[in-house]
């Protein structure tokens, strides 16, 4: 019940916040939508603690900025608010201990994609007239198209999407904990380097290999590492002897997953990027014939410089 109430409230809030003409109860709408978002989050259960506080800060920041993106009448500000959304999402990624993705998101989205957007916004906006202080807002920026139907349909979708979370989230099976250190079996060189850096083995000592399987003798479950000494004999390190930086880090796990499980997908992604680049070049090279005469006239008219 709370779910549907807050979803409906959010829908009304977004509907009110959408720009239409001159007078709009935008602030009221934004407040309503914010209240709805907060209510739904509270309905899922309030969580205390500092890390949880960060979750709420980033979540509300992201949703608020997203609302601003779709309601701000000026495209440049919408793009800037989108950067704020990206930063909030990166914060959520950090809380989810996906550090690499958080920074990749900031670099790729805020650094590259959004700059492209800003370029195009500035390329494709009419310059203000001489006498005017600033360009008048184009009517297509200040008037939303069929806001009611869109809000109703979208928030109906949200209600359906989130029904499961309120009803059955508690009954979801807990995923079996997976030990990321299991990946250490695949990186004996890292194990050797870490152990050597901490002075636990000497140069020339190698991680032993299991005689039956031929794999490095690293047991992530039991936490034992067997090392063949150069001087002969073996030495076993148990888990409480592991240096702190022995454990698999986010970026290492990500790299292994990316290159071991999805090598074909990387190739496809590369092809997609290549095609997009070619397509963009071909598309934007095309000259529009209609404009040419006008441009020449203009160039002759004011001496070619603007």
């Amino acid at each position, binding site marked *: 019940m709370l779910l549907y109430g807050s979803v409906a409230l959010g829908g009304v809030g977004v509907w009110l916040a959408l720009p239409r003409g001159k007078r709009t109860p935008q602030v009221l709408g934004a407040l309503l939508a914010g209240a709805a978002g907060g209510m*739904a989050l509270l309905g899922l259960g309030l969580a205390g603690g500092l890390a949880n506080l960060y979750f709420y800060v980033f979540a509300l920041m992201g949703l608020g900025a997203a609302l601003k993106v779709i309601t701000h009448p000026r495209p440049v500000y919408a793009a800037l608010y989108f950067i704020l959304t990206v930063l909030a999402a990166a914060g959520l990624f950090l809380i*989810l201990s996906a550090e690499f993705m958080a920074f990749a998101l900031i670099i790729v989205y805020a650094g590259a994609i959004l700059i*492209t957007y800003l370029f195009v916004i500035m390329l494709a906006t009419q310059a203000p007239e001489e006498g005017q202080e600033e360009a008048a807002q184009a009517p297509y920026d200040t008037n939303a198209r069929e806001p009611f139907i869109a809000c109703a349909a979208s928030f109906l979708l949200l209600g359906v999407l989130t029904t499961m979370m309120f009803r059955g989230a508690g009954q979801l099976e807990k995923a079996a904990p997976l030990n990321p250190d299991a990946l250490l079996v695949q990186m004996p060189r890292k194990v050797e380097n870490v152990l050597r850096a901490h002075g636990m083995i000497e140069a020339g000592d190698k991680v032993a290999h299991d005689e039956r399987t031929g794999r490095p003798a690293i047991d992530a479950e039991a936490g034992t590492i067997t090392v063949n000494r150069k001087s002969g004999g073996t030495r076993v390190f148990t888990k409480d002897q592991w240096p702190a930086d022995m454990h698999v880090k986010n970026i290492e796990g990500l790299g292994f*997953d990316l290159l071991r499980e999805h090598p074909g997908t990387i190739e496809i992604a590369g092809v997609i*990027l290549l095609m997009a680049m070619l397509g*963009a070049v071909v598309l934007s090279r095309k000259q529009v014939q209609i404009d040419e005469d006008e441009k020449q006239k203009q160039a002759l008219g004011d001496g070619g410089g603007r």
Partner: protein
Amino acid sequence: MMTLAQSGFPEVMSQVTLAHYLFVSGAMFTIGLVGFLTRRNLIIMFLCTELMFQAAGIALVAFGRFHLDFTGQTFVIFVLTVAAAEAAMALALVVLLFRRRESLDAEAWREMRG
């Protein structure tokens, strides 16, 4: 749980659950959808698709985190790739369309309706 906390994965916060993240993701997706349907500026419409990509990314990373699997994060990399490709193509199209009509209004192309 102790071993998880030691191994680079801080322990899952006791109370913020997967459902919280999925709700944030769903709400952000919905906002992007509303924006895509209601705004008439072509650039903002594509910005809203980026918003929806963001929402999908949050959901993927949250799932990956709570199932202790890196595949979610791997897929966010591919989502980023597709988003970059889409942005390049879409913006090239927008520039092309703007040169023809001197307007970013999606309604300026309404005769293209099937």
